[in-house]
């Protein structure tokens, strides 16, 4: 199991325990965590699962694909050059048995 902490822009935090291999997007949507939409169901095609990863986890993230990189330029809330990622492309578990992210003001 892995632990994900979602920090909302209003100061609230949701903490989830999910099976290894669950994407951040899937974890949020399945568990009713607000602030992530995932319109395309996880195909890196809609940029509505934008998350900002906390600094201490940046080194453990999978490398960013060209597709994800291009979609991150299209997020509703402006991209952070270091911390922005698509939640559907990050799976909790393994090196990331714990991860914390900030959710942006808006996904659409």
């Amino acid at each position, binding site marked *: 199991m892995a632990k994900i902490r979602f920090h909302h822009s209003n100061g609230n935090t949701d903490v989830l325990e999910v099976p290894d291999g669950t994407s951040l997007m899937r974890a949020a*949507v*399945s*568990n009713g965590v607000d602030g992530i939409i995932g319109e*395309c*169901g996880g195909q890196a*095609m809609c*940029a509505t699962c934008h998350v900002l990863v906390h600094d201490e986890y940046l080194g453990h993230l999978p490398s960013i694909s060209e*597709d994800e990189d*291009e979609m991150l330029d*299209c997020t509703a809330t402006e991209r952070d050059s270091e911390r922005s990622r698509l939640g559907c492309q990050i799976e909790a578990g393994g090196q990331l048995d714990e991860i914390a992210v900030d959710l942006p003001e808006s996904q659409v």
Partner: protein
Amino acid sequence: MQLADSLRAEGFGGRVTLVDAEAGLPYQRPPLSKDFLAAGGTPELLPLKARKFFVDTKIDLIEANPITAVDRREKAVTLANGDRLEYSALVFATGARTRRLDVPGVGLGGVHHLRNADDATRLHSELDAASTVVVVGAGFIGLEFASAAVDRGLDVTVVELGPRAMGRAVSTQISEHFRTLHSARGVRFVFGQTVTALEGDGERVSSVVGGDGQRYPADLVVVGIGVEPNDAAAAEAGLRTGNGIVVDEYLRTDDDAIWAIGDCARFPCRHAGAPTRRESIQNAVDQARTLAATLARRPTEYHHLPWFWSHQAKNKLQIAGVPRDDGPTMVIGDVAAGKFSVLRFDETQLVCVESVNHPAAHMAARTILAIPHSMSREELAVVDFDLKQAAKLVRSTERID
């Protein structure tokens, strides 16, 4: 689902009841023709929302109990089990059902239509034992399924009535590009071919018979020949229908208290320049959001730009806008590398962009096309057909206006 979610998000505090014909939590449909069909184990449905959502938001989900009648005078609906629900606003979001292949033999085992979870689960369970597949219809569903079947090592033939792949929806360049991609993976295509019968070996299908007498061996047949809107209950209630439930720009029917959204709704589309019924996630979701705004606070016209995506043969196709058939086209990007876009014009104006593995171009196109007539071919030429630049211009013009 989106409507219920957005109603609460808009601050609507009244009763919200979702009446569903299916059992179980509402789920994502796009994966059913893609990842859901992959080899291995029991595939899982992806719920749109967790059970907890309905409790937290006080939204009633009534499962496996579709409406059977609408009493417009009393403002009440009757459900399949006889229950009666009163409404102040009734929204049809009943979607569409698969068009059935109406030929002898369609009832044989091994013949599948693909729309909902039951269809996909049944199909998945037969893929392990299948070896020779015929797909009837080279539309999005047919080709996504063909792709999944090839991934599973099956032999695939696609039989299509029209002259090219996805003929209803895409340019000839895109049809050809995808035909090539699928063929390179082993898919055989037969265009301009009707299906007149399915033949069986006992209880199961063994071949598909074409209009010209040609026989295509098949131990599994998947039919993807389009869908029909679920507008029967609306029609019986005396609402105007005709390839969908007719609504105005507020998504409202002739009855002040009844609305329709999604695959079942025929609405005035300014991007198409004609009444349209659109079959896409975007249309359903955006119409739901717009209607929620209308129902919760103030009347809001629906004018979102249609866009669509499909995942086939390991390639991503994204379409923004509505094409005019036979309009001029132009290609940007790198066709050889398989990352390009087809710009489709209506005489002078850009009206549609079809992108293959070109997501940034697609997103820029959505910004540009959201405002009708915002970019002519000439104006695009000024920025060297760089859609990102063009999108920036459109955005800055919007701000000045």
